[in-house]
């Protein structure tokens, strides 16, 4: 089977679309880009004109009706928080901004002056309420929502589904910055996905590679979106319990799940949960690969053993 692919950028990261029928690549890519643009317009915290930014404007309690897409993204974020006991929490907006991640990452200076950071729990996801039937959202005063932990993975899932619908058959893989979702009929031997710490890494003959037929794969890592302030390394995965970048033993976690957003929820929660994450993932039956700070590997939940190298 001959695969066809499109590579680009979106949401401040890489975009990769792969289809099983080369004739469907253009229509699939157009569908993917439409969904990704819509997610950016609805959920970005870096755009003043995004729906989320406009909704959050003001100091007091914010309330109103949001679009179906923003409601869906908020629902995904609140569901992530509920399923992880708050380890993945959308109310980290102020904490991640205080840590220096204030603009699109490409514009975040790699070095900077020292920051004064206080250990303080984030407000907590229960201070954001969504009434699904009416799409009414209420955000308490002082709460800043950041959908970054789940919106990109949700975009991958929605984009893959939209592409499949536009293609009228075949199979499609969508990756947004390494958050991978597949839909439709996969290649005969599945979608082969190399696992790395950085989604921009080249595919190499000795790279650990897995195959999936449905669902998604996501990798969360503290090694890529990093910056230094006063000589201290900071990153973008905030521990809601402290309001500071997570400081657990895992630097990178990859998870396979029934959807990309679920894989991402589990991977990010594992970084935050720290030492307890491996047993949590294993108990949940989630295939996962964890990399500790020294590069040591732990595979749980049925993550496949590395195959023979092809070099």
């Amino acid at each position, binding site marked *: 089977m001959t695969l066809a692919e499109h590579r680009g950028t979106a949401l401040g990261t890489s975009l990769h679309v792969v289809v099983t029928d080369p004739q469907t690549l253009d229509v699939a890519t157009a569908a993917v880009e439409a969904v990704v643009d819509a997610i950016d317009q609805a959920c970005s915290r870096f755009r003043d004109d995004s729906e989320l930014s406009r909704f959050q404007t003001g100091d007091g309690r914010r309330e109103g*009706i949001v679009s179906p897409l923003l409601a869906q993204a908020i629902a995904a974020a609140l569901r992530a928080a509920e*399923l992880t006991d708050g380890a993945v929490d959308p109310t980290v907006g102020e904490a991640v901004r205080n840590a220096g991640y204030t603009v699109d990452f490409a514009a975040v200076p790699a070095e900077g002056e020292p920051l004064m950071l206080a250990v303080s729990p984030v407000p907590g996801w229960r201070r954001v309420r969504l009434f699904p039937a009416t799409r009414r959202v209420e955000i308490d005063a002082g709460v800043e929502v950041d959908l970054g932990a789940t919106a990109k993975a949700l975009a991958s899932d929605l984009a893959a*589904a939209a592409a499949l619908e536009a293609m009228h058959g075949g199979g499609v893989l969508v990756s947004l910055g390494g958050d991978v979702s597949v839909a439709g009929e996969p290649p005969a031997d599945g979608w082969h996905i190399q696992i790395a710490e950085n989604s921009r890494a080249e595919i190499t003959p000795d790279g650990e590679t897995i195959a999936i037929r449905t669902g998604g794969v996501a990798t969360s890592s503290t090694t890529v979106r990093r910056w230094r302030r006063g000589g201290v390394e900071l990153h973008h995965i905030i521990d809601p319990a402290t309001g500071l970048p997570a400081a657990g033993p895992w630097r990178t976690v990859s998870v396979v799940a029934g959807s990309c957003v679920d894989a991402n929820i589990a991977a990010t929660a594992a970084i935050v949960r720290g030492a307890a994450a491996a047993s949590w993932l294993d108990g949940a039956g989630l295939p996962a690969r964890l990399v500790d700070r020294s590069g040591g590997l732990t595979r749980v939940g049925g993550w496949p053993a590395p195959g023979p190298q092809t070099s």
Partner: protein
Amino acid sequence: MPAPKRRITVAERDRALRLRRRLTMSFGVVGGAAVAALGVAAADAHAGTSTSAASTSSVTSATGTTTTPSASSSSSTGSASISTGSASTGSSSSASTVSGGS
């Protein structure tokens, strides 16, 4: 004492189900967990089993029409667990993409 639970009306149930259908149609997501979560939440409202804070106050929607929120907030999505998947050993020579941090 907690406020008594309000059983939603047939009209409210139908509105929630129409929303779920519209979201599903709009994005073509059959397996999307987030849509499922919304759907389950709508079903919860219909069943009147939500234990989350209830609200019966009227609100004005973006289009100016007056609506009444359902009794359920998404703090009770009803989604019990993260969906699981499976993987097998792949071949780097066949790899289509890379999953990594970004």
